[in-house]
């Protein structure tokens, strides 16, 4: 081990350090089998804490977010009450089941109003108004508030859970993955970009595209070929969760606009101009990886909280079907203190928006290839060890409840 520790993180063989994950090919059945997907729905997603939003997206009383969680047939309404408390509810009117908020995924309201018969709820979920209430015999309004959806918060992140009484609290679930992130100043950052798309791919094909850097020279030939090396460093496995660090390439050749932007603000590519990353921003770079850029933190199964110096970004993969996934990406930054900083930050969001779109470009074509059945197994490089870990974690859970699964 001493010899391994001395090796530069870019040169280490991570499969040697994690022999339990093996080095052989990995089955593709989990990406295409409807039966496997139903097992994941029942035993993975219904037992997981899933990232829904950060409270900074709903700062004022009456601000709300609606999450369409097809994986548990739920529409979830997350709303800040007049008392400042963030709550989550089933977005279902207690009368005959119509959705209370239908039009938008986020917004602001003074009260929650069902358009079917005009039932009105306070922001804390209490049923406030029922037209013609005296026509309901023996009706007790206090018993018909919106039904709560299980939610807990950590560092301002709102996570939801399909069970009314989860076995683990959110913080217990996050475990040691969250330890280094406790120091990150999430509370100082504000939403700065928000994108979404629905793609015809298995959710794991999506997650996989963001847990290796082998693809950087090809997929990111336009956006970041010179910014990043094609290797992730310091893979950390925290139970079912994963973390890793992406370094900046020492050969980074910034574009003129990146140099211009770096005069005004910090950011992913801006920090690489003149290598101005310190590697010491609170809550980042836990392994002291040289030429630090950002850390990838994957909350099992499908939520990402990636942190860098002065910014963080999240991905949510919400499975719809075995071959369909809804993807949400949000970027948060330290709020601009000056308009010049705000101008510089504009490049950050364009750079991420376009770079992430590059990442997503392979999902549907990969899914089509896998569904052809041509490949019963896929081969993985040492650099793709996170994909191996994901397979192992899911397989172990499903095997413990259903017997042997993928072949």
């Amino acid at each position, binding site marked *: 081990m001493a010899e391994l520790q001395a090796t530069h993180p870019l040169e280490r063989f991570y499969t040697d350090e994690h022999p339990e994950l093996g080095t052989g090919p990995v089955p593709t059945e989990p990406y295409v089998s409807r039966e496997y997907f139903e097992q994941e729905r029942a035993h993975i997603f219904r037992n997981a804490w899933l990232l829904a939003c950060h409270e900074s997206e709903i700062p004022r009383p009456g601000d709300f977010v609606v999450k369409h969680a097809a994986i548990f047939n739920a529409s979830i309404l997350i709303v800040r009450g007049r008392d400042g408390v963030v709550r989550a509810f089933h977005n279902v009117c207690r009368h005959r089941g119509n959705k209370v908020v239908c039009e938008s*995924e*986020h917004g602001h309201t003074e009260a929650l109003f069902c358009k079917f018969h005009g039932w009105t709820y306070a922001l804390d979920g209490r049923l406030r108004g029922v037209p013609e209430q005296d026509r309901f015999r023996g009706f007790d309004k206090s018993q018909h508030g919106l039904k709560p959806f299980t939610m807990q918060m950590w560092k301002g992140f709102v996570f939801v859970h399909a069970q009314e009484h989860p076995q683990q609290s959110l913080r217990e679930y996050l475990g040691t993955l969250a330890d280094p992130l406790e120091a990150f100043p999430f509370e100082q950052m504000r*939403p*700065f*970009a*928000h*994108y*979404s*798309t*629905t*793609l015809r791919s298995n959710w794991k094909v999506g997650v996989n595209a963001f847990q290796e850097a082998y693809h950087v020279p090809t997929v990111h030939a*336009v*956006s970041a070929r010179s910014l990043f090396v094609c290797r992730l460093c310091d893979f950390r496995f925290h139970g079912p969760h994963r973390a890793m660090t992406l370094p900046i390439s020492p050969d980074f050749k910034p*574009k*003129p*606009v990146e140099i*211009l*932007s770096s*005069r*005004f603000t910090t950011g992913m590519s801006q920090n690489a101009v003149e290598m101005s990353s310190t590697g010491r921003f609170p809550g980042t770079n836990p392994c002291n990886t040289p030429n630090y850029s950002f850390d990838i933190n994957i909350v099992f199964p499908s939520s990402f909280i990636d942190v860098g110096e002065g910014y963080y970004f999240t991905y949510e993969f919400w499975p719809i079907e075995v071959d369909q996934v809804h993807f949400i990406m949000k970027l948060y930054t330290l*709020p*601009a*203190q*000056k*308009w*010049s900083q*705000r*101008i*510089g930050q*504009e*490049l950050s*969001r*364009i*750079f991420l*928006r*376009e770079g992430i*779109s*590059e990442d*997503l*470009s392979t999902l549907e074509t990969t899914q089509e290839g896998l569904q052809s059945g041509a490949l019963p197994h896929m081969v993985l490089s040492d650099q793709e060890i996170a994909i191996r870990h994901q397979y192992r974690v899911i397989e172990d859970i499903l095997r413990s409840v259903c017997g042997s699964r993928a072949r």
Partner: protein
Amino acid sequence: MQQQSADGSLPQAFASLAHLTAHWAHASEHARREKRATSTMEELRAYSDLVGPLVPAIAAYLDEFPVSAPLPPQESRLFQLAQMYMEVAWAVEFVGEPEERGQVPRHRWHIHEIGEPGR
């Protein structure tokens, strides 16, 4: 919503860019992406050549205004031209085309707008 005065004018020091505001000053990220993706490289390069050298002066000028409040209409348009410069630079400096090929088609890649400071 962003205020837009009908004349499209800019602060006096940047009056030479006023002819750009009608087509290049957009309040929404979606509109800026559309403008970039549907322009020709000739138009994008011309915009970049004209606005790029002035971005440091625009930034210095706007820094006289607090970020805690919305910018006045003229300054808001000037800010949007600087934002648009960043969008255009993606095409001019990174891609070499108005839009990168092979990405998720932009009609499927939804932008949820985030407000500017002070709003």
